[in-house]
């Protein structure tokens, strides 16, 4: 049986502006029911390539070569999934389908298929009244309601949580395979577009190629034993939310609720969770960078939360941190070298001035930066260089504990693997203990020895990384793992907002196993096997989800 004719085909496609050639000699063929993913770094030309395929070139950019596409049935979903701001959803659907009645019917059908609760009621809303998750679903539903033969989606659902995004992308792929449409997804590798795709192409330096052979992914060494160096006990972090001027009711937001764990020397504990799960707050509270933390954080037996400011500062050289958005963690007005030196001077005042300069140069070189980077300002660094500078500053005082809060989330796959390898190299060489907060279950299981899964500020599952990767029991953990693999998570809907966590089990509104009992009582951690605990009433139910 011969393969069907491609629906969308580009032969020798070239795109160039007056200043530069953006894409050269690209060959693309997408058959019916096929899903193609195109990835590339920032500014690689992914968006322009999609526009060229849709035949919508912006002014000042020219394309050459032939693109064959089906007559009039090509839909381009631009970056950010824009909706018309001054029209209700109903009006926008009516515009696509032609009439009010079919518009509303189609809208409800598609929104419900994408798991928008109470879809019919939302039709009267304007885009700004929708949450980010629902807005993206509406944008996708609008594209699907147009019944395209070819759908070109630019970074679809980027910025949503991986679980939510992976499910939406999987649903898009399902739709393409059911209806025989061709689907092209473009985006960063970190946008997860490769997950549901049949084929992957990488756009690099203007060339469109199949991806290179993946290198062996870095992974942590065997778990070290030994007594814990860091013990967190019943850590609770709350933020006061005041009332209004005329005495609205003051309330508190509980960001982290009674978390306990131990970290041994040379061990990595990964904190895994969606945004809003409390992992960042937990990471910062461990180093006492946030007010409002209660409980105990014992570092070598001394409670960091109870000690005086001065004593804490003397211990900070052993306790370092990496933050998300590495460039924002540097003061834009000082050079990188000056800021690494400033940190070193504050953390290790015993190092003399001239030796300090050598230590700074050493730290920058160790992190993989050229010597000239010391004289650069943060604005002059790429994301990867800024992340390396952050590593240099954190590792210069030779810490014994490194608390990482999503330090690699904004990086490309290559940079991310390099920096993970760098981190693990330091762990092996210096016995560094690491607390690593991330929303990427794959990274958590690879570099963590133990993984704590967080939801609504509480640990809902806790296991050695190898066990968690193959035998996770909590539906939420399984959703995170499925999202990291590019599969379809069984969690419906969006993460609950921090102030409206449901009663009982915080996962129950999205959970495929939820029963009445879940609403009445919050589950406690139960032991599955030694070292593996889970907070789910039905953890021993068959893992059909």
């Amino acid at each position: 049986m011969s393969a069907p004719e491609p629906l969308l085909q580009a032969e020798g496609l070239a795109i160039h502006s007056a200043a530069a050639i953006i894409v050269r000699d690209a060959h693309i063929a997408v058959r019916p029911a096929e899903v193609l993913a195109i990835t590339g770094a920032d500014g690689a030309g992914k968006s322009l390539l999609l526009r060229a395929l849709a035949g919508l070139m912006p002014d000042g950019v020219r394309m050459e070569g032939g693109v064959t596409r089906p007559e009039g049935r090509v839909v381009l979903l631009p970056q950010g999934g824009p909706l018309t701001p001054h029209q209700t959803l109903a009006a926008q659907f009516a515009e696509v389908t032609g009439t009010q009645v079919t518009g509303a019917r189609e809208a409800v059908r598609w929104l419900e298929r994408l798991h928008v609760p109470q879809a019919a009621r939302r039709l009267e809303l304007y885009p700004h009244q929708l949450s980010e998750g629902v807005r993206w679903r509406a944008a996708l539903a609008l594209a699907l309601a147009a019944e395209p033969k070819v759908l070109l989606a630019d970074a679809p659902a980027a910025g949503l949580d991986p679980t939510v995004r992976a499910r939406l992308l999987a649903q898009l792929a399902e739709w393409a395979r059911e209806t025989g449409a061709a689907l092209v997804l473009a985006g960063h590798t970190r946008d997860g577009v490769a997950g549901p795709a049949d084929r992957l192409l990488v756009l690099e330096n203007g060339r469109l190629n199949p991806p290179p052979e993946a290198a062996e992914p870095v992974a942590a060494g065997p778990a070290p034993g030994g007594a814990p160096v860091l013990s967190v006990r019943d850590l609770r972090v709350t933020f006061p939310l005041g009332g209004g001027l005329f005495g609205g009711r003051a309330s508190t937001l509980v960001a982290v609720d009674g978390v306990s764990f131990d970290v041994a020397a040379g061990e990595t504990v990964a904190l895994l969770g969606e945004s809003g799960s409390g992992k960042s707050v937990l990471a910062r509270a461990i180093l006492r960078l946030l007010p409002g933390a209660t409980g105990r954080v014992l570092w070598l037996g001394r409670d960091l939360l109870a000690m005086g400011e001065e004593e804490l500062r003397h211990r900070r050289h052993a306790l370092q941190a990496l933050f998300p958005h590495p460039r924002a963690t540097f003061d834009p007005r000082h050079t990188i070298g000056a800021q690494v030196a400033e940190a070193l001077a504050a953390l290790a005042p015993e190092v003399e001035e001239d030796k300090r300069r050598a230590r700074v140069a050493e730290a920058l070189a160790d992190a993989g930066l050229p010597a000239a980077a010391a004289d650069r300002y943060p604005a002059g660094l790429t994301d990867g260089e800024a992340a390396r500078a952050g590593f240099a500053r954190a590792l210069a005082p030779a810490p014994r504990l490194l608390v990482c809060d999503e330090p690699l989330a904004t990086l490309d796959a290559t940079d991310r693997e390099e920096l993970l390898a760098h981190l693990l190299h330091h762990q092996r060489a210096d016995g560094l203990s690491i607390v690593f907060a991330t929303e990427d279950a794959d990274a958590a299981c690879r570099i963590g020895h133990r993984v704590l899964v967080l939801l609504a500020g509480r640990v809902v599952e806790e296991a050695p990384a190898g066990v968690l990767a193959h035998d996770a029991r909590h539906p939420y953990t399984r959703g995170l793992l499925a999202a990291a693999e590019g599969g379809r998570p069984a969690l419906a809907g969006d993460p609950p907002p921090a102030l409206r966590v449901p009663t009982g089990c915080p996962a129950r509104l999205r959970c495929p196993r939820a029963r009445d009992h879940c609403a009445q009582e919050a589950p406690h951690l139960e032991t599955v096997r030694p070292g593996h605990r889970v907070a789910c009433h039905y953890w021993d139910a068959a893992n059909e989800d």
Partner: protein
Amino acid sequence: MDAGRFDPVMETPAQAARRRFAAHRPAVHGVGALAVLALLGFVESMLAGPSGDPVVRALDAGHTTLALALVGGTLAALVGAGWGALAVAAGGRLERRLTQAARGLAALPLALLPVLAGGLLGRGVDLLILTVAAAAVPAAALAARATLRARARREYAMAARAAGLTPAMVLWRHTIPTVAGPLLAAVWPVLARALAVESFAGAVGLGAPTPVDTWGTLIGEALAAQAPMGLLAPALLLAAALAALNAVGDGVAAAFPEERP
């Protein structure tokens, strides 16, 4: 190694701010126009034309008017910046109260304040400056708070804490120098507001006391004397000064753009 001036990678933040300001042509012209307006009075008195001529009097009044606006505006900017900084530093309920108070005051017709004070308490330069400043403070406080809120709570402050700096060191070395430029851009419109408020008081005859000429009092005199030709010179100079101040403000704002995350 030559730190090349036009190498965007090696450019210092101060150089970048200067380059962005210089690239904003109306702002550069605005600086020139303000300098000319302030100095013309001196030139004119040296040339010693007929002293009753309305054009000569208007040119003479330039530096007085601008000095009054500058002193009043600076006072308002300082108080407003302090108000905004206090709100952001306090956070929580106190921040909301301070902000709501500023918002409430800003909604009042504060331009009438110098007129009211001039009518009730008599005309005086000190009183005029104080009331002009008071009229501009709430808007300055709101602008300062918005800017500080967006810029002061940045990750670098937390990273500096993690790097062992004391809160005072973080404040002096990092937070204050970083917010200074954007804060200047935020409170700059206060100068134009002070100039406008002062001129309004002068125009209704309750501005600077009699021997002191400002564009506002000259406009007021011309209106009282029903002399349209006398109106022309001070009104045009006032309009030019307001336009120049706003253009410079745009340039200062362009010099300190939002940073990319």
